[in-house]
């Protein structure tokens, strides 16, 4: 077990290092001269020179890389070029919108998908199964941002149950904040729940065909008992993989969907920064998102070992 954790931790660190290199190279090496890139075509020579000095671009590439990475560790993400405020401050507030949104969506999607998948598998071939399969087939085809727009149209504009956008901040109260995240979370959750339902169903169906299920029935367990006590835990293993992958899609989706709901999250920050060519902000936010994805993958890997004793190695 220790060997497994050690190996996964190594992979985690290696991925982060490589990711940071990729981000750094794409944003600081590739544009040539980041300073003139940021200032645009019509900038003056001395303005460019001033910016270069300010950004420390006179140092070597390697030195710049290490000072950037070092900064990430200490929490110094640099200063935004456009806003002249520390990036860390800007990111912190917005992170508390995007991450909870992604987690909320993941929770919703799981809460819908597990029962639906189990239900469909236990009623295989019947009307219940066909209905679930039909609904999920539609669900995966719907772009989440379009669904978001429809939700806004129906629930915010016509029915007025929710506001059409905006985020009051966590200070306004947990319930209020969550309410404003609900429509976006539902929009995100729909396609993911559809995918997860199908994976749960097919994984369960595979497990139900295994030999040990026959042994379970031979003990005297009813079909239902056998499913709950034996099939589910074995079926979880492939489902966990998908959930881990889903988080990265949910995070990307959250970023896109913030546009629809005018949520002050990482999404708007990053798109504004791209438009205003504020590379410093883009670098840090991308790195942060990669970190979130990689951490979740790591947790999923650990969860595997908890669910499946075969991965813990033999004693």
């Amino acid at each position: 077990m220790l060997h497994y954790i050690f190996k996964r931790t190594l992979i985690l660190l290696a991925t982060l290092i490589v990711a940071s290199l990729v981000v750094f190279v794409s944003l600081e090496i590739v544009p040539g001269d980041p300073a003139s890139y940021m200032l645009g075509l019509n900038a003056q020579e001395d303005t460019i020179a001033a910016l270069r000095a300010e950004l420390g671009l006179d140092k070597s590439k390697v030195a710049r890389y290490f000072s950037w990475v070092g900064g990430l560790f200490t929490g110094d993400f640099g200063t935004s070029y456009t806003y002249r405020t520390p990036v860390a401050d800007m990111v912190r507030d917005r992170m508390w919108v995007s991450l909870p949104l992604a987690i909320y969506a993941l929770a919703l999607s799981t809460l819908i998908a597990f029962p639906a998948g189990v239900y469909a598998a236990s009623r295989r071939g019947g009307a219940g199964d066909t209905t679930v399969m039909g609904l999920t087939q539609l669900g995966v085809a719907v772009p989440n941002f379009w669904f978001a727009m429809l939700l806004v149209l129906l629930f915010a504009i016509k029915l007025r149950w929710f506001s059409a956008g905006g985020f009051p901040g966590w200070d306004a109260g947990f319930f209020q904040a969550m309410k404003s995240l609900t429509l976006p979370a539902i929009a995100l959750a729909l396609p993911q729940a559809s995918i997860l339902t199908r994976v749960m169903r097919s994984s369960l169906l595979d497990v139900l065909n295994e030999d040990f299920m026959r042994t379970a029935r031979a003990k005297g367990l009813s079909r239902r008992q056998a499913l709950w006590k034996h099939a589910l835990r074995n079926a979880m293993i492939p489902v966990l993989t998908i959930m881990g992958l889903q988080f990265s899609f949910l995070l990307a989706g959250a970023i896109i969907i913030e546009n629809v709901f005018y949520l002050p999250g990482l999404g708007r920050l990053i798109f504004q920064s791209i438009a205003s060519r504020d590379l410093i902000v883009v670098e840090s936010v991308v790195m942060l998102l990669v970190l979130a994805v990689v951490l979740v993958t790591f947790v999923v890997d650990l969860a595997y070992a908890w669910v499946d004793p075969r991965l813990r190695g033999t004693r």
Partner: protein
Amino acid sequence: MNANTPLLEINNLNLSIHGTSILGDVSLQVEVGSVLGIIGESGSGKSMTALSIMQLLPLGSEVTGTIRFNGQLLTGMDESALCDIRGNDIGMVFQEPMTALNPVQNIGEQVAECIALHKPITSKQALIEAAAVLEKVGLPNDEFPLSRYPHELSGGQRQRVVIAIAVALEPKLLIADEPTTALDVTTQAEILELLKSLVEGSNMAMILITHDLAVVSEVADHIVIMRNGKVLDRGPTDAVFNELAHPYTRALYEASSHTPQRNTTHRPDVPLVRLDKLVCEYPLPRKSLFGARRWFRAVSEVSLSVYAGESVGLVGESGCGKSTLAKALLGLSPVQGGSIELRGKPIHTDMVLSRQIRREMQVVFQDPYSSFNPRHRVARLVSEPLFLLDNPPSRDERSSLIRSTLKSVGLSEEDSNKYIHEFSGGQRQRIAIARALIIKPALIVLDEAVSALDVSVRAQVLDLLASLADTHKLAYLFISHDLSVVRSITDRVLVMKDGQIVERRDTESLFTKPQHEYTKKLLAAAPQLPQSAALPIQT
């Protein structure tokens, strides 16, 4: 129910699944405390009969007829009443021990679950009883704590756990469906002993389903012979084997004791293939973080020779290294030490065998269902080794070669255009032999080549192999765990254990006067087919 009523009575059982008839008018009885053996080849319906008793049939099954157990009518009983009976009054053991247990639960939980399901006791109490049952089946708690997981146990050990689950509540009837088919000879003997002792110890009745006549003759009081879903013969074991009344029974018996006709060959002076102190090792997965990598020695300094035209048997149980040895010889597995010579010339030991050398040796594998690429037609499959020839034959030569090779294994020209899924197991092995034969090698390695075949088909394939050896002067390296098969087709036998050859003799001497302890143990464990007055066989 009085003392004379059978414990289990099946009357006129008919089963069809999705319209296909599986069982036709099956009737049989099991007395309290007796053992009934059901014999049949694949497709005979024997497993389906067992599942019918347990009422665990697949979807789409339609059943007519009655099954009466312990005075109750099982057919038509509602599911919750059946759940009470399963595991409690009737226990079942299945064929594949490797997949019969839930991989994410430990063995204590799996046994205790069955107990707690039928007895009103706490889970703690159930675990204590589970521990006792595991001891009873030969898995002492100090060596095999309840917290062990199935993947930490061998096949034989897993089967013991399955048996523990089945007998935990001392059922009146135990159904064992091919319980030892997937196990080694010695493990098979142990499991059969265990089953016999359990039956005698608690006056439990047992139905033992198998295709192996020798196994059933050692355990069963009565036997029933099935074919294509019908019962063809029945009676007390001794009587059935002695009389061989039904032609199918007779055919099965003949096939089980079949010895193909072989001509003795004159042994040349120089060996065809010579292995000298061969060593093959596998790296083991790392257990600790920084420890040195450990290696497992599969083949440990083995030396042997095979002469042209002779048939050499290599026997041993699983894990002894015989398959690794074969693969090393064929250049399919790396070699860490020692040398291999073909006709006196050394072969490279790093798996890069030259084509000339590969031409002289070909192989037939065990599993007829995975030996062929499902996307290729038979003509292409059979002619694959022609790749080794320096001057590949022209199209016409190729087709005529394919045709003649298929003919020599008993297949026809039309077969060359078909896909492999259109053939049965026995036919596929013939095609595999054709593939090995087509470049006229000097040696064919047969790695458990008949182990997966039904007994009657096996006899035919052995005949084919014997006649081909005579015609083409082939040498065989016949690898098997089945001693009776090896005895019938080899001139010499080598016995392998833990990577080493422990005994090597000519076949008859080995079987009649074994010397090494392990050989004696193997021979003692192998079940013997009883003698029949109707068809005496030579020992």
